[in-house]
């Protein structure tokens, strides 16, 4: 499989503080790629840099073969690189429906907004029930659903999922992991950071382990499962 999104020697951080040190990583087209790492390893930083919320200090990001590291975030979304951020980042005073609608602000998705909206409501009936509730008053899990739904509204080609099941009850988490392969079937490629390593590595074709802002190990799901560092840190063995 070819890479749809690729980071080469990617460096990033906050102000003078460097967090990512030359990260190499690629997201397979039509596949699921996982990023693992303990607290503070730099996963969120990586995702934000890929999405253009943080400027890359050095290195390259390629999407479909063309460099995107200098493009502003909205152009990346327009092309199909969409982030579902950690900590949800919903628009608290806007209604659920407005949150979703604004998700398809990019030109590609705008015309199909209504259609995508009903798909998202089908996926998350709870959001349908709460269409007009202010997003800020949703429960933690509901906000997570909203963030996911909003990401889908942008009609992504690559979906960057930063801890998508954080705060979701087991039923919902399970559903998410059922949805993800469906999305791939629809033609999406996915990069996912998730603490539920078992399930993640079960569905991911390939994974990277970040440590202190560097890729420490990489390999296929089963390979990683067997790596001692991984099983110790993430599988709780």
């Amino acid at each position: 499989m070819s890479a749809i999104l690729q980071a080469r020697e990617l460096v990033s951080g906050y102000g003078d503080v460097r967090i990512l040190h030359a990260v190499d990583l690629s997201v397979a087209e039509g596949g699921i790629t996982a990023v693992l790492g303990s607290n503070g390893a730099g996963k969120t930083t990586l995702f934000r840099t890929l999405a253009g919320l943080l400027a890359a200090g050095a290195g390259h990001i390629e999407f479909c073969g063309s460099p995107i590291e200098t493009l502003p975030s909205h152009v990346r979304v327009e092309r199909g690189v969409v982030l579902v951020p950690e900590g949800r980042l919903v628009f608290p005073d806007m209604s659920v429906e407005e949150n979703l609608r604004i998700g398809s602000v990019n030109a590609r998705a705008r015309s199909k907004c209504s259609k995508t909206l009903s798909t998202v409501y089908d996926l998350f009936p709870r959001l349908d029930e709460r269409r007009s509730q202010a997003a800020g008053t949703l429960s933690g899990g509901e906000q997570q659903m909203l963030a996911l739904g909003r990401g889908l509204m942008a009609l992504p080609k690559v979906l960057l999922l930063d801890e998508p099941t954080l705060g979701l009850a087991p039923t919902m988490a399970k559903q998410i992991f059922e949805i993800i392969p469906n999305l791939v079937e629809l033609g999406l490629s996915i990069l996912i950071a998730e603490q539920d390593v078992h399930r993640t590595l079960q569905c991911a074709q390939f994974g990277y382990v970040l440590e202190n802002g560097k890729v420490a190990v990489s390999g296929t799901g089963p390979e990683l499962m067997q790596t001692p560092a991984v099983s110790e840190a993430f599988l709780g063995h």
Partner: protein
Amino acid sequence: MDILFSPQLLFSALVLGALYALIALGLNLVYGTMRLLNIAHGDLVMIGAYAAFWLFTLTGISPLIGLPVIAVLTAGVGVALYSVLFRGQLEGTQSVAQLEANSLLLFFGISVVLQNVMALAFTASPRAYRHLDDVYHVAGVAMTGNRVATLLIAVLVLAGVVIFLKSTIYGLAVTALIQSRDAAKVVGINVSQVQVGSFALGFGVAGIAGALISMAEQISPFMGFPFTIAAFVVIILGGLGNIAGGIIAGVLLGFIEIYAVALTSATYRSILLYGIFVGVLLIRPQGLFGKTRGG
């Protein structure tokens, strides 16, 4: 008491209200969307007024015809200010409080510069010109031509902007941007485009308001401040960033002003105006039409 039902009062209230709404609309687009405390807003109104004055006195062209030019002029000032000063502020400043404080200072500076440059160029003496000042009588209401024109154009512009914001996703993008810049970027809003658009639209509308005002009132380099205040009162009353709420609040303010005087005495005009403003906020801390997050 029959004074209350006088159509004359209604006309005045509408004219005044429409003007307030128009001026506030421009401020709402800048303060409401970017939290830039634009206390130079009234000075843009002033620039629009001077542009209309000179246009008319030098060329005899009606400000009504010149409106697009004037709007483009003040919008241009907005775009220039955004590009030179505010883009960086908006990108670089972390907290809203810091942004608000710094923008207050910036706009304070800009306001001082604009006023004094105009005073230096054209002196502080008040100026006025005569245009469309014939009085028409319609259904017992006496209306000066320029006030009718003011009302009509204000309503047109207000309606135009509201329809634009409601019918395009731009309006929602503006609201989204108010609430979270980061999230706005995440969903793919072209943040700088929305911002520059808000500046252009907000300042352009201010210019139009100034041109309209210049037809009926004296103008001077320091005329802006009361309009700034009125605009702030209106957008806060209407709920910050709530465009429609601001328009309703503007009209409301016009009515309060006219009818408060009619019902009580002119002496209490300002007390009532600010009293109602303060009172409303104490009862509804988020303004009349502002949204709150419960709980």
